[in-house]
């Protein structure tokens, strides 16, 4: 079984990114980059499926405008067998990313392609579905339980107060949600082995950008809180403000 995992480099979720002087990008100064947290569920799931099968290969694929290898190396340290880095694309143009990924995945011929359900920087939720479209594969999004039964992938996902059960025929695409598993830490042996594992770097073919970023702004500072009074007497005023000013009730 060949399992492909698509992973994205994103700013550390604890970091507070600043807008760069050009007003259109994130200032890379002082930013720690991490594997997109949802992609960690995808990596973990692929590793578990391989371990359970006792055989197979896990291939990590990443599109990165700077050609930065660091997160693929971490994936290799976690246990991914080899990496493919596509140098090019942009951090925010999901359509381009999907096209580049599809170009690579075509040749990987994976039985299962795993994604995180979203990238926490661009939050656009579109890449898994676009890749599925390009490759003509079935896909299940936001999956919290996955089981492979022969040539079927049985997926569960949470929907409005209920659970949906999907059966996809492989090859297929699954995007992973928190709750699917508990991602492992890389082991020391894994880290030591990572630098010896193959990591192929490909130059991205030129693809026309579909999105142009015009401007980036930090979110407006939150207005300070206000205390409207104390005890029972304050309730009517509080209700009025919640209704008329905040418009939440």
């Amino acid at each position, binding site marked *: 079984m060949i399992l492909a995992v698509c992973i994205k480099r994103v700013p550390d979720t604890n970091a507070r990114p600043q807008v760069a002087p050009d007003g259109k990008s994130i200032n890379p100064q*002082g930013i*720690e980059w991490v594997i997109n947290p949802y992609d960690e569920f995808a990596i973990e799931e692929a590793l578990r499926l391989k371990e359970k099968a006792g055989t197979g290969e896990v291939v990590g694929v990443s599109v990165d405008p700077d050609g930065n290898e*660091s997160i693929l*190396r*971490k994936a290799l*340290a976690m246990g991914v067998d080899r990496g493919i880095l596509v140098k090019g694309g942009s951090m925010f143009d999901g359509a381009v990313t999907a096209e580049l990924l599809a170009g690579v995945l075509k040749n990987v011929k994976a039985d299962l392609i795993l994604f995180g359900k979203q990238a926490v920087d661009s939050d656009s939720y579109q890449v898994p579905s676009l890749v599925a479209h390009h490759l003509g594969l079935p896909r299940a999004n936001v999956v919290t339980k996955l089981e492979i039964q022969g040539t079927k992938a049985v997926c569960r996902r949470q929907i409005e107060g209920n659970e949906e059960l999907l059966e996809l025929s492989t090859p297929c695409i699954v995007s992973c949600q928190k709750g699917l598993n508990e991602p492992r*830490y*890389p*082991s*020391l*042996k*894994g*880290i*030591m082995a*990572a*630098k010896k594992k193959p990591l192929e770097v490909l130059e991205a073919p030129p693809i026309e950008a579909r999105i142009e970023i015009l401007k980036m702004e930090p979110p407006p500072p939150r207005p300070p809180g206000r205390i409207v009074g104390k005890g029972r007497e304050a309730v009517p005023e509080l209700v009025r403000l919640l209704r008329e000013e905040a418009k939440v009730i």
Partner: protein
Amino acid sequence: MNTELQAVDPFELTETQKMIRDTVRDFARETLAPRAQELDRKGDFPMQNFRDMAAMGLTGIPVPEAYGGAGADTLSFILAMEEIAKACGSTALTLAAHTSLGTMPIVQFGSEEQKRKYVPPNASGEVIGSYGLTEPQAGSDSGATRTAATRVSGGWRVQGTKMFMTNASVAGLFVITAVTNKDAPKHERISAFILERSFPGISIAKKEDKLGCRASDTCIVNFDDVFVPESNLLGQEGHGFSYFMQILDGGRIGIGAMALGLAEGGFERCVEYSKTRSAFGRPIGAHQAIAFKIADMAVQIQAARHLLYHAARLKDAGRPYKREASMAKLYASEMAMRVLREAIQVLGGYGYMTEYHIERMYRDAKLCEIGEGTSEIQRIVISRDLLGKL
């Protein structure tokens, strides 16, 4: 502002070293830190922490791959120790004793057969290592060892008592020193032995209660006529003292890293606190008396880090590092006491309370001025190296 001093500094760590540091940092923050307070209060051995570290391969960081370890360098071990100590001093001490003292003597001085038999279970964490040099009458003066090994058919019989053996009550393997020839010149009197816990005659006489590192296991151990087969003499007869002096050089860098991590743990909390706590209408960090404390702490932490990483790199390069290891250990452990004392001061009454962690770190750090050679002994080592024996 970047309070993580490492992130901005030109230590030129390799990608592998950085990945080890970052991975252990995440693990220590997420897994070890939340358990530290209760472990300290109860004083139970951190078995779950040890198992979790074993699962990640942290129990054999500098052990060569051929013997089941990760095969990483000394600096990687130091980086891991530092991150673990930031979260939990007891766990750091447990790992330092297991690795530097309970395992590395066999890696460095054992026969091929001994290495194959005893190192892999220690490296995987299946067996915990412990080390016995200190005795009731032989502390700083470890050459005054009285534990004796008498030659008998097929091996030795060991009789004596060892003090303060870290990990002893949970250990499966002991590395100890004993006098094998009391008439030989001082430094040739002693040999080193590898003892399995199951050898008849080994008993834990007392589990100590102590100021800090309370979850680390410290025991007095009796060796009562313990038969040790010939194959368990470590290295050559009469070389035990010299082996242990070499082992302590390496171990001292580890204890220094523990001190560094503890100081940083306190410092990080202190920086955060001085930005959020207000007094007299301003964050306390805006009062210069507090701001200057922060500056002084940062400088000292950074100086200790330079000394430690340098000593570790000398060792990795196969160059002499005895003096540098001693300097790093001495400076880092005394620095940690100063920094943590000031960190408590920055938090005021809250710093004195267990809830805020720093008082624990302060108690834990005191061990670093004592274990693997007291500060006085480090000054002897350094000055002798500089002056020769006058």
